[in-house]
């Protein structure tokens, strides 16, 4: 017999049912596909009949000549993006917080986080045009100062920095708003106390404002730890080309080329799995740290 309480909960289960089905079909079933990483997967035979080869795919990956380069590129680009993505928004939030004219403050906010809402296809189209060495407006501008045209997207030396700068350009407005929100929540009585103690504006910033946002900055840094292997597939995919593979190829683009273009499904899956496992570990670690140092619980 079904108890009264269970009957009462029934509508809640029913509400969840469609979502649960979708998640099983499109999130959990692909998880089963991970076994391909340990197989020599052949599409005609399917997962059930393909040959098991243990860790051979992983051995193959480690023997690939460009794998260390790709790993290095991924971590370098991702870490630089994380650093720039914290330092610059914090600086801008501090500067914006000093503005007293509301309309100016609001206009700046409106403009700086507009690029955040555009896709990397649109931004990629814009960047390819404005960064072109022959007709691009950026190189025309640099030409005024006698600087020779720079091939930002085609020169392996410049490419990673083009990625880092353009990513920061797209996203810093968004983070600035978060930090600015934290700044407006700093207790005003602290400023009053500081003024009584004779602190000038600079001292107030140093001893009241900055300590006031340290917790949220810590939190954001710790949480971004989970992104150390996410160098930004959508951006790199739209901006890179074979001549910058040496410094611009990242794990995700490698998975795409090996897995979908070359149709080496098992190898692609194995690289993807390698990335997922490390990222998963980092996310768990970052949440543990966030809980310990910032008293934050994500889940």
């Amino acid at each position: 017999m079904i108890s009264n309480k269970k009957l009462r909960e029934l509508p809640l289960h029913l509400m969840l049912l469609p979502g649960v089905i979708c998640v099983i079909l499109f999130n959990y079933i692909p998880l089963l596909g991970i076994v391909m990483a340990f197989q020599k997967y052949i599409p005609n035979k399917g997962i059930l009949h393909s040959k098991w080869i243990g860790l051979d795919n992983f051995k193959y990956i480690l023997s690939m000549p460009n794998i260390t380069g790709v790993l290095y590129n991924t971590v370098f680009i991702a870490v630089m993006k994380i650093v720039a993505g914290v330092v610059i928004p914090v600086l801008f939030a501090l500067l914006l917080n000093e503005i007293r004219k509301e309309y100016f403050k609001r206009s700046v906010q409106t403009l700086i986080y507009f690029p955040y809402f555009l896709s990397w296809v649109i931004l990629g189209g814009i960047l390819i045009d404005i960064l072109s060495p022959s007709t691009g407006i950026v190189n025309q501008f640099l030409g005024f100062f006698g600087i020779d045209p720079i091939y930002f997207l085609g020169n392996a030396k410049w490419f990673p920095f083009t990625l880092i700068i353009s990513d920061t350009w797209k996203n810093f407005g968004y983070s600035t708003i978060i930090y600015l929100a934290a700044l407006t929540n700093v207790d005003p009585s602290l400023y009053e106390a500081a003024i009584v103690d004779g602190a000038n504006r600079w001292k107030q910033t140093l001893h009241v404002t900055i300590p006031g946002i340290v917790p949220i900055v810590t939190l954001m840094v710790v949480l971004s730890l989970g992104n150390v292997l996410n160098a930004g597939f959508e951006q790199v995919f739209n901006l890179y080309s074979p001549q910058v593979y040496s410094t611009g190829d990242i794990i995700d683009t490698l998975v795409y080329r090996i897995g979908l273009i070359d149709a080496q499904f098992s190898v692609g899956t194995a690289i993807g799995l390698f990335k997922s496992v490390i990222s998963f570990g980092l996310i768990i670690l970052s949440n543990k740290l966030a809980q310990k140092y910032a008293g934050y619980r994500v889940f």
Partner: protein
Amino acid sequence: MQNCDLKNRRSLSRSSRKTPRYSISRKIFIIFNYTILGFTSLICILPLIYVLSLSFSSSSAAAAGYVKFWPVDFTLASYKFVLSKPEFLQAFGVSLERVALGFVINILMSVLVAYPLSKETKDFKWRNVYAWFFITTMLFNGGLIPTYMTIKSFGLLDTIWALVLPGAVPVFNVILLMNFFRGLPHEIEEAAMIDGAGYFTSLCKIYIPLSKPALATISLFILVGHWNSWFDGLIFINSPRNYPLQSYLQTVIIGVDYSKVSSENFRNISEISDRTSKAAQVFLAALPILIVYPFLQKFFMKGLVMGSVKG
């Protein structure tokens, strides 16, 4: 209430920090501050203005590099050309269809999942089991290849369902909405339940009407998300005529994926690989975002505040 409190605090902090006369160094700082902020804001918007002026310029002026931030030889030729291209219009149509269908599915799923998860474990014993079931999908996924194989084995390749079903439950939005639901007073629901209302009635008659700001916020996130997606279109759709706009633009503006282009399409691609028509297409694809941007901005802060409220 909270908003009002915030305003009071802000004005308080401003008046208390106002210094009657600025010192020299302070004046220099203020000038420096306005300059750097103004300059940065310009940098964020100038590229788009440049593309806009390029799209209204003649091809020859653009090719010669005369165009700066104002159209040279003003012409609508690029727009006429782009809007007369059946591929562009078709892709635009597919995108609209995808946004509409994806929106309905995402909103329904968000509400239906967020509401049960907003209950306490004492009212809904399985709450934590379900919560972890959904959160796991944020932490770990099969990756690109297994996801592709799954969609393929379901026979969804080249259909619009491949674009809207895999992300049917937007977990981030669910968390946002769940936190909002938790913040609403329980007493209303309790009163309604004493009068005989069930969970479905309570959700439709109490929670949804009270959550309009939260729903508006996630609606905008969903609309922008679907409009901007391109990679799923690129891999799950085989025939270019079923491409949504952003995937189509990816192939014509960024890089041509030769494996998927037939020789007949090749000719079209070379025809439009001209700077001004590319600029016109980029601008047309950004236009819907520009239109909803004022609303985005309005609800954006609310979304941030909501997301930070922890139950």
